[in-house]
């Protein structure tokens, strides 16, 4: 590997004026967290940039890890040289020779941030370019459409040479835009919604409703697994609130308004989620709703269900097609888990013909005829089990089990 470090460029946060310092600090923390399994790699921040020194760690796995850190617009594997002509020329030649198939055309782009450097950028273009050309006879300069563009960035502490820019995940550093509650069902959509919210800098805590014994232990494991994947994107840890929903669900089923069952269930879920959001000081609820996908996600249903809460309801997927969502789920690594065939509490007791346009008055009347509902909601909130899901660990395991591996 010819490169010895990676230059990381910050994304949208550069527009953030006074908050910039906080954002940069948070991003550095996220990068350090992401590099935890590469102990020799060392990240340091300078104005507007982060440098990762590889110190012998392989570049490719670190590249793959950094692609998933929010708040990075792009990054480049780079080689450092002393800010002195000979050293820069040697490094430039070494890089151009490191290509397994020597490129045919190239161009040099010099940026001289350190104005005390004796040669101007223009002179440096020639001094470096000519040196490379002399040593690699088959190579030509093409300033318009080069196979390789060699960047030379001259800074006071050293000069950085790089060719490629790998696109980063973009967005804001995790947790710089407040906190929200994610309704995590176990399906394909909600983890994708969570990922999009996290990319926008929202810190998430996930809420999952289970109806044991109607849903299985595996259904819960599946959600823990999804939360674990999201934790990977969110600094390594994610709180998961597991809400016992059996009593509410069976009470609503017994009420025998089959076509409104899903509407009533979703409203109860939102009430519970809102109370958990209050307790956890979260300012929004994120759902995987996508317009028209199922009966509970028609505009009419969204209206009747959404009125339950006064918190902003964020629906990142609302205008996306199912196939786009599936492709994203595959890319972020949640799809395989999401399609495991365990029933969740929404597929259970699914009515044959759920209402696509529930009537708000009817729904409210049913709810007011169930005086026990409030108590059940409070009980569900109180009975909620909260676990911290860690990325990279097998979750909650006993010491005994740990010692077997």
């Amino acid at each position, binding site marked *: 590997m010819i490169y010895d470090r990676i230059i990381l460029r910050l994304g949208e946060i550069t527009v953030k004026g006074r908050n910039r310092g906080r954002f940069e600090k948070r991003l550095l923390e996220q990068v350090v967290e992401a590099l935890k399994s590469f102990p020799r790699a060392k990240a340091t921040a300078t104005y507007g940039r982060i440098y990762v020194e590889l110190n012998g760690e392989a570049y490719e796995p670190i590249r793959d890890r950094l692609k998933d850190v929010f708040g990075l617009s792009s990054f480049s594997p780079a080689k450092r040289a002393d800010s002195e002509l000979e050293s820069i020329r040697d490094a430039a030649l070494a890089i151009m020779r490191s290509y397994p198939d020597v490129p045919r055309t190239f161009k040099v782009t010099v940026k001289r941030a350190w104005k005390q450097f004796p040669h101007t950028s223009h002179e440096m273009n020639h001094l470096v370019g000519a040196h490379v050309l002399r040593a690699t006879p088959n190579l030509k300069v093409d300033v318009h459409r080069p196979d390789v563009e060699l960047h030379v960035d001259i800074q006071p502490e050293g000069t950085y040479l790089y060719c490629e820019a790998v696109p980063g995940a973009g967005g804001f550093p995790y947790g710089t835009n407040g906190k929200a509650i994610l309704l995590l069902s176990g399906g394909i959509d909600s983890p994708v919604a969570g990922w999009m919210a996290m990319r926008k800098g929202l810190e998430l805590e996930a809420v999952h409703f289970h109806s044991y014994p109607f849903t*299985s*232990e*595996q259904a819960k*494991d599946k959600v823990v697994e999804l939360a674990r994947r999201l934790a990977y994107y969110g600094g390594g840890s994610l709180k998961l609130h597991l809400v016992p929903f059996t009593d509410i669900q069976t009470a609503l089923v017994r009420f025998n308004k089959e076509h409104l069952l899903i509407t009533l269930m979703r409203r109860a879920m939102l009430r519970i989620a809102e109370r958990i959001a209050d307790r956890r000081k979260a300012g929004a609820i994120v759902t995987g709703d996508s317009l028209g996908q199922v009966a509970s996600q028609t505009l009419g249903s969204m209206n009747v269900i959404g009125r339950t809460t006064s918190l902003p309801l964020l629906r990142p997927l609302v205008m996306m097609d199912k196939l786009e969502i599936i492709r994203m789920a595959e890319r972020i690594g949640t799809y395989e888990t999401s399609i495991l065939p365990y029933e969740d509490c929404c597929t259970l007791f699914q009515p044959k013909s759920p209402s696509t346009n529930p009537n708000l008055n009817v729904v409210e009347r049913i709810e007011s005829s169930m005086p026990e509902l409030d108590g059940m909601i409070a009980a569900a909130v109180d009975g909620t089990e909260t676990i911290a899901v860690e990325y990279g660990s*097998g979750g909650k395991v006993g010491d005994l*089990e740990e*010692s*077997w*591996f």
Partner: protein
Amino acid sequence: MLYFDHCASTPPHKEVIRTLAEVMEHHYANPSSLHKPGAEANKLIERAREQAAALFGVKAEEWIFTSGGTESNNLAIKGAARQYRSRGNHLVTTGIEHASVYEAFRQLEREGFRVTYVPAGPGGHVSPERIREACTDDTILVSVMHVNNEVGAVQPIAEIGRWLRSRPKTLFHVDGVQSVGKLPVSLKEWGIDLFSISAHKLQGPKGVGLLYVREDVRLDPLFSGGQHERGLRAGTQNVPAIVAAAKALRLAIESQPLRLERMTRLRERLVRQLQAIPELVVNGDASSGEMAPHIVHFSYPGMKPEVIVHMLEQNGVVVSTKSACSSKDDRPSRVLLAMGLPHDRAASGVRISFGDEHTEQDIDKLAAIIRTTVDTLKPLERKGGGQA
């Protein structure tokens, strides 16, 4: 007793024994069952799989658990050949493979496949050139062992694998039973599609092995039954053995670099002392390629190897003739013949293989015992042919 037969089987690690017993006691439910104890047992298997994946830098789904090295080799070879028969009818392997590879190919020959057995050079190494020459447009599988289990020659897997990369329709199987834990293994870098491991060769329990099946590779399963192990290997998984195997694998691989260094020194020490005994020829040649650090193989031309093994055992040293899986067969070693060794050398091979518990003193003691054994046996030598 000095146990110098690690290639046949290793003393299980104390931690492996504890794991085996504890998992057996706590997790007896069927890992395919729907209930919680079943789900917990299944979780242990999946964790074992993830551990194997992390140790090799591959995906968890790419490992399947089998009953051992023999099954891994059979499943890889027969499974791949039968699955991809429509692509071609030709298979390539070497003449120095373990019986579980060699006999699997013999069976495929009876099923109508054409098999080329590439011989090794006198030093025990197969040349990548010869493998290349053996491949035709019809070749769907190449199988080469990483470390030969008799003489310990390390085969040029990286080179063969790199070349095979240019032939996406030819799968590459590597029998890694004798190499894991002793040498570094890079499945991805070496372009390996199928890789066999046996747990009891690395201080794990018997009856459990692993097979790496690169994603996108399909195999025709050997067993009919349930959809266990991605449908590739029907049969209720051996949960305690699988967990214990994952532990053994971790212990073996984490200490591999240190072991390699330490054993290389022990091997050199032993080889030096054996070379000083004029009656013996050390087999396997470090000048034609790398040698595994834990195996020393020598011939005593003119002497039946069983006699040496029994004499050494009387003196408190346990070694073996050829592979344990073939050791009751008293013909000359097929492997040594495939290296082009003369009959008397091929019929008089003795294998010494050591492990972590051995010290330089043990090696010196072993060499001294071999020395006196040879002195005792010398009057019984049968020169000229050595056919017993």
